[in-house]
């Protein structure tokens, strides 16, 4: 999923002795394969992951690991394993999360099954490095997202990021990792940008897979950056793994005038974020999800109401394998024009 293949590969390659096959980036072919063997109206991430799995198996993988829970994600593994079996592949698929809860004992058992010599100390040690690595990556990503639209030399952020990920792969200790992070942070800050004082700021919220896998949202963030828009996005792996359980209570409290309960997956979180974005003065909100994502569909009427109350425009995008990129582009441009006009009007009113 996005760049997170790097820390995942890092963790597994250090704690088990099996050969790890890195997933290839998602292409049209991946999606074609995935769609062919998926049920009709399952949500899109199912098709993407199934496609990636088949491609991985063709490269020689025979153990697949998946982590997911909260809505339909938690049940993917069982059906996907059956589909792969019916296709004649002899593989074992493990899901680290059951029924939306993470059971340490069960994970230990799974690791033992994968590699009988798995040592728990090693697991904890490299696990903690991986955790830090993900957090550092997300910090840097945050900075990049806010600035990439204004870089003077096109592609300089992306280039430096690839270099950073390459270096991250080879670290062995916490100190080394921290040093690298500090070094790259400085280098990122050195990249020259020409950020005007008043830029259009957009917050991106929505379903986690579509947000984090750039291919599945047609690289929406890059398109926005090319329009010189500053982006804020909340969902990343460090949020999902380490902050969600704390943040969700806060979000529920903040949005008590709209919702009382959690609504599954990230739906309630997104409502909290939408309100936060409105209060912080963002110019617009983009909500993206894969088609048929039930929790987000439930959140949509609430989001519309929040945004209407604060008078912040919101646009909904639903991504499927058949969604036309041109259509998204057109709607995005229209949305952008509208935001720009609003901004100008605001200025005029304040001048008078």
């Amino acid at each position, binding site marked *: 999923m996005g760049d997170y293949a790097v820390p995942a590969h890092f963790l597994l390659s250090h704690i088990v002795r099996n050969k790890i096959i890195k997933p290839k980036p998602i292409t049209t072919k991946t999606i074609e394969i995935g769609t062919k063997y998926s049920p009709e109206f399952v949500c899109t991430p199912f098709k993407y992951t199934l496609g990636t799995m088949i491609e991985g198996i063709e490269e020689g993988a025979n153990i697949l690991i998946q982590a997911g829970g909260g809505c339909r994600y938690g049940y993917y593994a069982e059906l996907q394993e059956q*589909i792969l079996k019916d296709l004649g592949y002899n593989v074992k698929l493990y899901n680290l999360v059951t029924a939306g809860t993470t059971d340490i004992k069960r994970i230990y058992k799974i690791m033992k099954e994968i590699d009988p010599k798995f040592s728990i100390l090693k697991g904890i040690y490299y696990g903690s490095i991986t955790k830090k690595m993900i957090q550092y990556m997300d910090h840097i990503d945050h900075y990049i997202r806010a600035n990439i639209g204004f870089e003077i030399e096109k592609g300089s952020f992306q280039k430096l990021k690839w270099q950073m990920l390459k270096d991250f792969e080879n670290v062995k200790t916490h100190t080394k990792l921290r040093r690298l992070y500090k070094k790259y942070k400085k280098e990122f800050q050195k990249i020259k940008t020409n950020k005007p004082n008043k830029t259009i700021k957009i917050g991106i919220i929505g379903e986690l897979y579509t947000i984090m896998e750039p291919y599945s949202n047609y690289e929406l963030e890059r398109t926005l950056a090319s329009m010189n828009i500053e982006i804020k996005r909340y969902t990343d792996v460090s949020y999902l793994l380490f902050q969600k359980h704390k943040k969700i209570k806060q979000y529920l409290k903040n949005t008590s005038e709209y919702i009382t309960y959690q609504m599954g997956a990230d739906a309630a979180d997104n409502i909290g974020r939408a309100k936060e974005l409105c209060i912080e003065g963002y110019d617009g909100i983009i909500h993206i999800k894969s088609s048929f994502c039930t929790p987000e569909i439930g959140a949509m009427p609430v989001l519309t109401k929040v945004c209407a109350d604060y008078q912040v425009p919101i646009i909904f995008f639903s991504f499927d394998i058949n969604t036309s990129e041109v259509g998204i582009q057109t709607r995005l441009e229209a949305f952008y024009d509208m935001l720009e006009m609003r901004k100008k009007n605001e200025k005029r009113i304040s001048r008078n």
Partner: protein
Amino acid sequence: MDKIKIGIPRALHYYYYKDLWKTFLEELGCTIIISPETTNETLERGKKIANDEMCLSLKIYLGHVSYLESRCDYILVPRIDNYGTYEQTCTNFLGLFDIVSNLFTNKLLTYNIDEAHHQTEQNAFIKLGLALGKGKEQSILAYQNSKQKEEKQRKQKRKNEMKKLESNNPKLLIISHPYNLEDPYIGKTIKEILKNLQVEYINGEYLIDHKTIQNSTKLSPNLYWKYNKELIGTIEEWKQKIDGILFLTTFPCGPDSLVNELMIRKIKIPHLNLIIDEESGSAGIETRLESFIDILGQTTK
């Protein structure tokens, strides 16, 4: 003092808990208004309010809620999260209360069942009673009475359904959420067609008892949706006695999309997967059902 009028939408939860609610609320001295059976108009009304990606059953639900608006003091919209970590419900059931409260201005009556976090059904009903201004003891008593009565009715239904299993006609087990099969808009035509074809159809929902959930783990060990678990448990339990299975679901149901697909891949009984959406006409359904029953008749001979 006038009795409190409570509106109950005839959709989703209604088909699971109608007996329980009826006794409970009447014992606490409330009047119940149940929205009339689903018609085309209900769906149209629901579609206007709903988001177009919501599932058909939810659109129908919203149509019913919209009918009840201004006809009662409260509308009963429960939130049912889970009956334990491995017995969760669909995310629409989690979000239902908040969806309705944001789409309508009517006062809502609600209770929350979340047994993974110690919010049991009894607690929830006591709170419901308190919200109606009744005492704690009275609520407990009403809850226990209604639970007993519900249990009795369930056993009776199960007995009737078991009798059908002894029939000589082809026997078809229908795996479908009750809010789909028993809804007149979705399930009525199907039932009629099956009756005309002289098929003995068995409603999987009525066969459920306390052992059913354990049986489901044989077919799918990691499944964590309560309602689906119960339904597929009946397949495992009665597979020797039935000739075919009909999977009936609405478009685009989240849990069903995965569970039914897995079942179709695992079981070796003739089956038909029927997906109903807003546009499905009865003629198409009839043709498919007829040809399925034809095949069924040939295989059983």
